[in-house]
């Protein structure tokens, strides 16, 4: 202990530590260890030289010396008391006292006996004031031996009075008494006596605090001093006051209660906030993201159906609409109406008109879209979420307007869009599926649709539902309407197709379309998981045959090619005869039918039983087109459902969204088909479409495709219809190619991959083309609203265009991504519309952007799409291109196309977009157009870049190739067509379509030739085996394509190849 104490007390002192070898270290003693190890800080070896301090470099931070090494440690001049704590304790202080200090002895006090008995009273009574003089004399005499000389007589000071009885003595005595009396009687004497004898002490007179009289004052003073007693009094008074204060406090407490109130308020505020939050959340979650958007969309949709500005009522109307849509009658009616519209318009004159009309509307949509707000305003006033609303509005507007005006341009646009949307085709497929189901097979669709999402409306609703029920409803309603239109359009298309071609061909295309759709649907439905599945599926497809992997792509490509081809064929044919209208109707029907079938086949096939689905579609195709369609749709829905099941809600939502989109697209289709189909009822269309497909192989398809495209465009049910259409288109082309050529088959196969049947595919291709166009056109229109509006003078068309745009965008996105398709529906419902529009607006300001956005937004889908499809990638580029092209086209060639083959132009534009997405041809066309227009519009570059980044390089290359090829070919075709079509969009579409068609025809045919093998391949692809053939087909197609209009083929092939490679 002492060692510790001593060492501790010397801490911080300088020390010299000598070790065994005699070396001395100097440092500051820092601390020590239990083993008596010593630590020196800032130690240095002490040199022998005196007076030389340590150099900086000689000092060691710290050195630890073991006790065994230490010989002696010396601390110089240490104050051992330095750190003592008790400097001021008693002991410490006492220890420092200087000198001796003796304390006095205390003595007990002896009060004396006299006081024993008496207590304090005795003292009071004791008059004696201290010592008696005698006592003092006595005490001093005894104590000190002093004898007092005191004489009480005071003889030494005075003389005693001698009394006598003499007169004189008496006189003097009397006189003395008189004088004394006088003196005493005087006032002065009294005053002086009074002063001298005043009993009051000075304290009493001057310093004492007198209470008696001053109580009153005290009272007054109490408030100040608050003496104890007073305090009590005051306390009383205060009590109240205090109580009051407490009360006040309480009151304040009351305030607190108020506070609590505030708290309540705060709670309420919180609640409010909560509410707000909830609201906000709601807003953010549902309204903002999708709901609001959706609502707008829906509202827009309703507007579409009836008036653009119905947003509020729309939801209800939508539901009602969906039902109506679900009901074939409604669909037919809508379809018929659309058809009728189309019919009137769709016919040559109508088509041009429509194109023109659509062009303007689209233009307006574009303008609107480009300015989201504009979108909202133009399309709808609701403009809740400008972008969304606008989009939706546009879409709705498009839908309504599109159907009527769609006839040619709208239809073409929609179809083109759908084609472009093919990537979206999943969505579109879904949409188409739903729409087809609803339209073609009201009961089945309704049943299926409900199952999927609750019918097409439900489908849309699901999508919307996830985001926002309201929105969904509206969207559903719109979707339903769209679907109806689509359905009608499909039916009409089918019917048209039937008349023109054999239903089988259509169904085949449809099957292909369905495949693509399935793929798309898969992609779209389960964004992620579905994407995986889709990827797998796509991979299978690609591996199998037609670039199935890129099935969407292939399908898209095929679609595109087909669509283009068809469109091309159509252009060729149509231009000649302007069969566009008729053809379109067939195409649309075919597309519709194809979509349905495709949807069916695709759905089943996509998940697992691709082949089955195809077969089923075929069967269905064999059966009633409508039924088939419905079944396909159902199948799609089923597939979707499967996917959904896999991905569950999200997928469902997507599906629903897809469905809605599809519906929208369908409406477009319907509208388009209607124009075209007007002759034939929508329902029949499904069947007719196959028939149509069969009858009209290439040319018809081309026309049909164009029409479908046109329809899709007009219907604007971009997503569904476009997919449907696209697929159908591709199928159509394929089917056509099959019947006519293997190459067509290839496309068909591609489309058919899902569904083998060439005819169905043809139908599908046609339908797809139609729808795609429609969809694409819408999308484009949306994107190109400005252009489209220009093109489509009629606002309705524009509105439809918006819808289409939105849908198309969605479709595009789906198509683009494949998964995006799936996304498209959902996105359409929720994100897609809003996002797409916004994105599109932001990005491209047009559909392309939206598409990309969609793709982006739907990452899952996107990847899949990307991975799956270079084509999908192409689609993106295409989309951008389309958008650009549409604008450019609209500006440049739009008018010509419209004028010449309005349907084609419209379809072509749409197709282009679609094709780009789905098929390279479209991309090519778009690209060419874009290139063409690139000068015109910057969008193309952006678009291309956008796509490029998103889309795999391969796809881009392909796209570029396609572009290049297309430019030449397409341009050629386009120029005429464009010339014919005044409207840019239509022109673009037309150009695209033409280019595609041309490509399709020239190149596709070869490709199709190989395609024959492809059809099986397609099946295989769907199943998986076809993949092998498909790639070859693609290659073959590529080869042919280059030779002929190779660009498309090259694209197709390239995409396919890319896909294969990717796969």
């Amino acid at each position, binding site marked *: 202990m002492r060692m510790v104490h001593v060492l501790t007390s010397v801490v911080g002192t300088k020390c010299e530590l000598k070790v065994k070898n005699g070396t001395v270290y100097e440092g500051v003693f820092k601390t020590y260890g239990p083993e008596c190890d010593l630590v020196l800080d800032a130690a240095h070896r002490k040199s022998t030289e005196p007076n030389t301090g340590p150099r900086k470099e000689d000092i060691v931070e710290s050195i630890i010396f073991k006790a065994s090494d230490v*010989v002696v440690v010396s*601390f110089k001049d240490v104050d051992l008391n330095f750190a003592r704590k008790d400097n001021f304790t008693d002991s410490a202080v006492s220890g420092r006292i200087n000198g001796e200090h003796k304390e006095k002895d205390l003595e007990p006090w002896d009060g004396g006996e006299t006081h024993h008995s008496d207590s304090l009273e005795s003292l009071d009574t004791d008059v004696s004031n201290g010592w008696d003089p005698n006592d003092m004399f006595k005490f001093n005499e005894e104590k000190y031996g002093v004898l007092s000389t005191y004489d009480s007589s005071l003889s030494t000071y005075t003389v005693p009075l001698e009394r006598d009885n003499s007169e004189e003595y008496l006189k003097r005595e009397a006189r003395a008494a008189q004088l004394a009396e006088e003196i005493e009687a005087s006032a002065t004497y009294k005053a002086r006596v009074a002063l001298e004898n005043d009993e009051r002490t000075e304290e009493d007179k001057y310093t004492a605090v007198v209470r008696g009289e001053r109580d009153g004052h005290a009272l007054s003073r109490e408030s100040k001093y608050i003496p104890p007693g007073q305090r009590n009094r005051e306390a009383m008074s205060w009590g109240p006051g205090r109580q009051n204060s407490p009360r006040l406090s309480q009151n304040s407490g009351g305030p607190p209660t108020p506070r609590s109130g505030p708290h309540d308020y705060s709670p309420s505020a919180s609640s409010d906030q909560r509410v707000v939050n909830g609201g906000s959340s709601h807003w953010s979650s549902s309204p903002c993201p999708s709901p609001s958007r959706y609502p707008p969309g829906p509202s827009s949709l309703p507007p579409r159906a009836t008036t653009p500005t119905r947003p509020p009522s729309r939801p209800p109307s939508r539901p009602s609409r969906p039902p109506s849509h679900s009901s074939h009658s409604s669909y037919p009616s809508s379809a018929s109406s659309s058809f009728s519209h189309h019919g009137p318009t769709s016919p040559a004159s109508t088509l041009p008109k429509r194109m023109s009309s659509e062009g303007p509307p689209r233009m307006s949509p574009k303008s609107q879209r480009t300015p989201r707000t504009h979108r909202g305003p133009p399309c709808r006033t609701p403009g809740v979420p400008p972008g969304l609303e606008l989009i939706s509005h546009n879409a709705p507007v498009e839908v309504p307007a599109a159907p009527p005006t769609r006839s040619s341009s709208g239809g073409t646009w929609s179809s083109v869009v759908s084609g472009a949307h093919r990537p979206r085709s999943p969505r579109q497929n879904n949409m188409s599926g739903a729409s087809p189901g609803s339209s073609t097979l009201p009961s089945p669709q309704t049943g299926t649709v409900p199952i999927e999402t609750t019918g097409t409306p439900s489908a849309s609703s699901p999508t919307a539902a996830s985001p926002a029920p309201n929105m969904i409803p509206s969207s559903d309603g719109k979707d339903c309407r769209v679907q109806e239109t689509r359905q009608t359009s499909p039916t009409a298309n089918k019917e048209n197709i039937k008349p023109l071609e054999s239903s089988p061909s259509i169904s085949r295309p449809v099957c292909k379309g369905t495949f693509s759709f399935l793929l798309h649907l898969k992609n779209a439905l389960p964004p992620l998981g579905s994407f995986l599945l889709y990827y797998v599926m796509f991979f299978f497809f690609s591996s199998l045959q037609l670039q199935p992997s890129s099935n969407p792509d292939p399908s898209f490509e095929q679609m595109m090619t087909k669509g283009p081809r068809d469109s091309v064929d159509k252009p060729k044919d149509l231009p000649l005869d302007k069969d566009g209208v008729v053809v379109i109707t067939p195409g649309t029907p075919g597309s519709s039918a194809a979509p349905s079938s495709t949807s069916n086949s695709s759905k089943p096939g996509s998940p697992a039983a691709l082949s089955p689905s195809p077969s089923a579609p075929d069967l269905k195709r064999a059966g009633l087109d409508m039924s088939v369609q419905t079944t396909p749709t159902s199948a799609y829905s089923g597939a979707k459902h499967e996917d959904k099941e896999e991905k569950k809600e999200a997928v469902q939502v997507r599906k629903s969204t897809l469905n809605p989109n599809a519906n929208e697209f369908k409406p477009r289709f319907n509208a388009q088909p209607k124009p075209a189909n007007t002759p034939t009822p929508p329902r029949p269309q499904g069947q007719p479409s196959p028939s149509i497909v069969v009858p009209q192989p290439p040319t018809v398809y081309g026309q049909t495709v164009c029409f479908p495209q046109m329809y899709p465009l007009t219907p604007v049910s971009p997503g569904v219809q476009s997919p449907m259409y696209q697929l159908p288109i591709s199928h159509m082309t394929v089917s056509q190619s099959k019947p006519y050529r293997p190459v067509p088959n290839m496309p068909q196969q591609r489309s058919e991959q899902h569904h083998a049947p060439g005819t169905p595919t043809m139908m599908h291709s046609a339908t797809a083309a139609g729808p795609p166009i429609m969809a694409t056109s819408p999308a484009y229109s949306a994107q190109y609203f400005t252009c489209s509006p220009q093109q489509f003078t009629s606002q309705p068309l524009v509105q439809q265009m918006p819808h289409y745009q939105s849908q198309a965008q969605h479709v595009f996105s789906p198509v683009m991504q494949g998964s995006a398709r799936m996304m498209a529906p959902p996105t359409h419902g929720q994100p897609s519309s809003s996002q797409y529009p916004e994105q599109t607006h932001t990005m491209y300001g047009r559909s392309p952007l939206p598409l990309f956005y969609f793709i982006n937004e739907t990452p899952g889908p996107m990847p899949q799409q990307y991975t799956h499809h270079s084509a999908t990638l192409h689609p993106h580029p295409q989309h951008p291109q389309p958008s650009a092209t549409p604008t450019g086209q609209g500006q440049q060639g739009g008018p010509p196309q419209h004028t010449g083959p309005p349907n084609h132009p419209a379809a072509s534009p749409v197709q282009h977009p679609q094709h780009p997405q789905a098929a390279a041809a479209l991309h090519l066309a778009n690209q060419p157009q874009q290139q063409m227009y690139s000068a015109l519009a910057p969008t193309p570059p952006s678009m291309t870049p956008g796509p490029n980044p998103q889309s795999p390089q391969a796809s881009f290359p392909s796209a570029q190739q396609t572009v290049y090829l297309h430019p030449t070919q397409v341009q050629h075709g386009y120029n005429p067509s464009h010339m014919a079509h005044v409207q840019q969009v239509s022109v673009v579409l037309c150009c695209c379509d033409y280019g595609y068609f041309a490509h399709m025809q020239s190149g596709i045919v070869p490709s199709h030739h190989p395609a024959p093998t492809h059809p099986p391949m397609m099946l295989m692809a769907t199943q998986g085996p076809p993949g092998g053939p498909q790639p070859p087909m693609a290659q073959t197609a590529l080869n042919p394509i280059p030779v002929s209009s190779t660009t498309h083929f090259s694209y197709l092939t390239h995409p396919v190849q890319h896909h294969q490679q990717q796969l």
Partner: protein
Amino acid sequence: MAAPGPGEYFSVGSHVSCLTCLGQRLNGEVVAFDYQSKMLTLKCASSSGKPNLNDVILINLAYVSDVDIINDRTETPPPLASLNVSKLANRARTEKEDKLSQAYAISAGVSAEGQQLFQTIHKTIKDCKWQEKNIIVMDDVVISPPYQVENCKGKEGSALSHVRKIVEKHFRDLESQKSMQRSQAQQTQKDSTLSS
């Protein structure tokens, strides 16, 4: 350790004398002894002659021979006072800083006079530091190399005058000390001469 236990060789308070292995003779009052490490602590009169200070020597008995107990003490040693550890820690820190500062000055090539002046100033004013070869006092007064009174520069004021007084006194004391030494030396010489 309150009292020398059976195992303790030295009782606190006893005076001992020992011879180290290095031939150094040490003696003092036993303050503490650690049997484990054989460390013996002695308290000696301050080598500087200051009455209130002591020299503390820590001896390792392992290297000591000829330990003699001059007188033993049986009284109970005084109780140990509690120590202010923080105060000790501060001292250790300040000592270390001072040493490092000094070392810095030395390594900077400051003359011995400068160092001595620095030490002198530091005794009075803790707030002084080396800046290169200049002594900075209170961040206000700068004393540059010759370190004479006229080298004290800074804002005119009490600080500067105070520092000048310190410097002046330092050299005066230095002179007196030298004279003292001289005189002593002379005396010793005289003594030696006388004795011789």
